């Protein structure tokens, strides 16, 4: 835990900016809901779409509280924002320092590479926790005001599962980037996986032969149980949490084996 505080300090100002931005985004989406609720005909926009497209957009339901939040926030937009934050930071944290030539001095201290790796991963998880809280708190605060009246546990489940999705993806990004010493490799590889698996997950509701691939898409373990309607899914939470820990262990081992670039 030696370096966690300094890690947070280095990015403190930028993190504050992200948190404010996320809060504003959530508040803005919530502010539109009372108007949307009065227009049930909006539903027809989505219900008339092909099923495959509905899947990609997060469902056909635009007017119910859970459907509105899913399509407008949770299906794509919000995780995309958090993934940009988490993966960007996770790639920068070791590979970025290596590319910027600041890593040598950091590792000149009596710290094992594994300890440094874990400290960096903890910082990434803390940033994502802040971003998740910046999503959840305005949702809870405006839940009644905006007329959503969703169960608190469902909102919490959606946010926590989203946070875990972003943690697993970001820690995968840290592992790949630090194993190669290049930010772009992790961002590229994990970004490509996220995009491809998003398509598979979204289309699998309509395209039956994609069904067996669903467990291999990370999105299945985030939205598969529809947390806004059904609350927590223990299996999903466990899959994402175990994946995060395992990716960190593998990443630390790979990082420990390498020659670091000067």
């Amino acid at each position: 835990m030696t370096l966690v505080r300094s890690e947070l300090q280095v990015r403190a100002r930028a993190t504050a900016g992200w948190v404010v931005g996320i809060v504003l985004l959530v508040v803005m989406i919530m502010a539109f809901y009372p108007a949307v609720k009065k227009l049930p005909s909006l539903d027809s926009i989505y219900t008339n779409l092909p099923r495959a497209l509905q899947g990609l957009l997060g469902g056909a339901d635009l007017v119910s509280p859970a459907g509105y939040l899913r399509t407008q926030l949770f299906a794509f937009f919000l995780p995309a924002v958090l993934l940009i934050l988490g993966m960007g930071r996770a790639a920068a944290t070791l590979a970025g320092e290596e590319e910027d030539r600041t890593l040598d001095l950091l590792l000149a201290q009596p710290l094992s590479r594994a300890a440094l790796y874990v400290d960096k991963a903890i910082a990434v998880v803390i940033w994502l926790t802040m971003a998740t809280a910046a999503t959840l708190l305005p949702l809870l605060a405006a839940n009644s005001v905006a007329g959503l009246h969703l169960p608190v546990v469902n909102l919490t489940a959606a946010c926590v599962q989203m946070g875990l999705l972003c943690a697993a993806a970001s820690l995968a990004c840290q592992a790949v980037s630090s194993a190669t010493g290049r930010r772009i490799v992790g961002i590229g590889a994990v970004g490509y996986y996220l995009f491809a698996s998003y398509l598979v997950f979204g289309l699998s509701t309509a395209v039956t032969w994609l069904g067996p691939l669903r467990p291999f898409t990370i999105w299945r373990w985030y939205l598969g149980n529809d947390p806004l309607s059904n609350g927590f899914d223990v299996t999903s939470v466990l899959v994402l949490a175990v994946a995060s820990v395992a990716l960190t262990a593998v990443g630390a081992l790979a990082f420990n084996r390498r020659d670091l670039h000067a």
Partner: protein
Amino acid sequence: MDSAATAVEARSLTKSYGRTKARGIVDVDLTVGAGEVLGLVGANGAGKTTLMRTMLDFIRPTSGTLRLLGMDSVTEAVQIRRRVTYLPGELVFPARLTGRQVVARYLAARPEVTEGRIGDLASALDVDLSRPVGDLSRGNKQKIGLLLAFAPRADLLVLDEPTSGLDPLLQREFASMVRQVAADGASVLLSSHVMSEVEQVARRVALMREGRMFAIQTMSEVIAKGRRRGRARPRDPANAQALAGDLRRTQGVSDVEVSDGGQDDGLVTFAVTGDVNALLATLSAHPLASFDLAHADLEDAFFSAYEDPR
């Protein structure tokens, strides 16, 4: 005390690098004793940084052994780094942090370093820790780097190009800091591509070239090999040619020239390499008005070593 006896012990240390395995270091043997200050000199790309980064376990040896303070450089890297500090040749800090935050970040795993120690060094080096490091000059950043290397009272300091960017006053302060830690029993390994920078503080100099340890000599041996420029003015300018003739026949003396006319009329200039006793014998046979011998040109000694492998 066995671990204190030898600060660095490299045996046939080889590190191959890059796609063609052309970069790196080859068969390096080096011993640095406790309390010794060793200068590592070589052109850019000679392998100095590779050797130093292997010591810190940033890169691992391809073959050979490397022990620091009696410990294996790979398997005991963390214990080694507890007692070793490092100054990178290319010093970069996160620009937005203040000096104080930088110090906290890069000494985070060294809780034994007190605020008082940091304050003392900051005032000795005259560096302002309250400003963002991005606003600091190269020299001031280098001072923070030196502070980080000297603050922990390490048993071995590995300093890559420590005096680059420092003004002459600070180079003197740096030299006195090195002498102080060496007097306290710490070993210092410092690299430079400029011989004059290590000359002030190093007792021995290791010359590296194309990844190999080319020669390890005491500073006095290097100085003895150095070429010095001299000037002698006979009391009677008419004797200048005679003096020049004798000098041309003297062992180790070259480039003898006589100025005639103007202010320098009768001044004999020359260069001497190595032992100066023959030169002194020649000079003593001529009544002189003045005589100077410049400090040895170590760059020259260094390059002559390159041309003339033993």
